[in-house]
């Protein structure tokens, strides 16, 4: 199905205080990682409405990454717990509509974990590349 040059389209929604800062740190340290990710910054993963993720898949995203602070470290105490619960539910919804739930991933990367951020991106890109283009792609406008 996919041609040789196919590159996954992956969107990352990440919190300002931990994962965004961790991603910046990977930059300062010049830690290289794959280019196939586009990040959107929110203040906290608690902001991530399941609608955003469904919209992304509907628009043809091949994968979605939600990344926040470690449990206990959320800048707003518990936004990441709430987000994790939602992502968990959402994964079962994805399965029900026939999408592999590995296309949605939630990770926890702190402001000091630049190297971990790079590792996460490598992992996510590998996983999605292996899964190939999203079956919803053909419906995306």
């Amino acid at each position: 199905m996919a041609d040789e040059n196919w590159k996954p389209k992956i969107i990352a929604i990440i919190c300002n205080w931990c994962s965004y800062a961790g991603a910046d740190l990977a930059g300062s340290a010049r830690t290289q990682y794959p280019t196939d990710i586009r990040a959107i910054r929110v203040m906290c993963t608690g902001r991530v409405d399941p609608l955003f993720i469904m919209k992304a898949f509907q628009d043809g995203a091949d994968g979605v990454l939600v990344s926040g602070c470690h449990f206990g470290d959320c800048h707003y105490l518990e936004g990441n717990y709430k987000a994790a619960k939602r992502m968990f539910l959402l994964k079962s919804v994805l399965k029900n509509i026939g999408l592999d739930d590995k296309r949605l991933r939630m990770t926890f990367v702190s402001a000091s974990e630049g190297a971990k951020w790079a590792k996460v991106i490598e992992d996510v890109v590998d996983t999605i590349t292996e899964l190939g283009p999203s079956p919803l792609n053909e419906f995306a406008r």
Partner: protein
Amino acid sequence: MAEVKKYEEPRIGVFVCHCGTNIAGSIDVKAVMEYASTLPNVVIADDYQYMCSTPGQNKIAEAIEEQKLTGVVVAACSPRLHEPTFRAATKEGGLNPFRFEMANIREQNSWVHMHQPEEATAKAKDAVRIAVAKASLLEDLIPKSVPVEQAAMVVGGGVGGMQAALDLASAGIKTYLVEKDPTIGGRMSQLDKTFPTLDCSQCILTPKMVDVFRHENIELLTYTEVEAVEGYIGNFDVTLRKKARGVLTTEEAEARGFVGGGCNGCGDCEDVCPVIRPNPFELGMSPMKAIYIYHPQVSPLIYTIDFDSCVKCGLCVDVCGDKKAIDLNAVDEFETVKVGTIVLATGYDIFPVEEKHEWGYKNYDNVITSLEFERLICASGPTGGHLIRPSDGATPKRVGFVLCAGSRDNTGVGKPYCSRFCCMYSLKHAHQIIEKIPGAVPYIFYMDIRSFGKMYEEFYYRIQDEGAKFIRGRVANILEDPVTKNLHVNTEDTLLGRPIDVEVDMVVLAAAVQPSEKTEATRRLFGVSCSQDGWLLEAHPKLNPCGTTTAGVYLAGVCQGPKDIPDTVAQAEGAASAASIPIHRGEVELEPYFAVCLEDICAGCGMCVNLCPYQALALVEKDGRRVMQVTEAKCKGCGTCGGFCPGGAIRMQHFTTPQIVAQIDAFLLGGEQ
């Protein structure tokens, strides 16, 4: 999405930064700029060497005026670095500063894709398109000014915390100094002398401790811990647990009607107390009673009962007599204080070096740590300043100093970092034994000697001249002679390139340091991040080394990372200065990222109310129906409610659903929405 307030016609300006070669080295900036000019709503696109410079910022202001822009996009570094800069430039041009959006094409692009110019350029184009989509929907927002409580708090009363408290107090600010131990002073009060000047540690510290105790603006709360923290910069409510001390100060006694009573530090109680236990200040090397002070210079000079070991015999109460200072039924008390800003100065502990089995600490009598050495060489210490071998009380002549004992250790047992002060204090220790014990020879086993500070290298030369022996190599193991209790230090002398075995009478391990035990719990209370090793994380390693990502909370001393006394004091003064700014300004601006209830849509289900971690939401009766109401002063703008509301009735300012959906669409659908 009913609430979209689309501007008749968004007019966006895009500015792409080269950042010298930082960005332009891997991204084709001109191509990104040209691409930007083709995007919907973009009326001007430009590029510049350094957008953050004055001419760069002027470009923004000029374009706003000339092109009647409704929104500005700068594609450059991280918004965590320069969003404030460009917001100011946007404001300068006459637009509301929140009509600015940044595309991060440096930290999250050019620097992490240095060898993929094509992909990096494509990613930068996407980032710009995403930012333009958001900028087209940005709205005017007015930051909220809130008054700042005219008081500060310092947590931790070591030399760092004391200095921060003194500076804040001397700047006229009421300061609460919270210390978990019965006295202030921290680790520095356990030291004998201090490098490189060899000042007596207590002699330079005690006057400061007295100043702290006497300062009219400092409320000293020893034997007290932070229990809970609520609020935000300018308005923190900190609940303190005043641990049951069992002994009343003169003021407390007076409050109970015993005028002229209270503890005067006479110590009669200590003489009669029958309970004997190890003194933690002397690292267990001398005894202490259940009712105690750590050492004669404690501040405040008041006794404390350790209720874990107290048998409640009441002998102390009797001998205390009319002073009525002792209350054996004391319980912990709680108090909540309001402060505007907070400095954390919670210091360090010694790494449990027994975990490095090969050196035999706690197994061989004559292997001690450097902190134990400080107490043993100190005239007010357990041996009156006579360095002795624990095994037989003899004076050691050959003393091995093992540096990096658990520091710079990547085995997983020790710490990967350098503990920074061990080289220097070990040189100091070498000097001290040469000075005190005729004929003594220090053997210093080292990997590198890091004598980085002012007059430190000179101190190193001096110790070399005094006859200390330096052996370069990491110590593999230490073996005890079971008869003599002497120790064999085995290492490879890397300068000679051969293994050696040095027999010594005593070994001193320069053990690594680690964040103090309560650091983890404390940082969580204050919402401060930590680095991978557990040290508290500064807001920016170069540009904001005293701040944290939690506005209003600052760092001083070793809690942020190992540093010696001069660096601790310097950082404390920096933290105090930073913490005094909001207080002296009198008000702070909060980012206006509040939740707003769209009352037309709100179904009054109340699901959001319990989600808010700050109790900012409530259901109220309005025009005959129930709707949610936000208390702006409590809302911190996390968006947890907005991410959940089933009807989309909560608008998160600056992160609205239409804005985020537009970003998603812009990326995936190429922005043709």
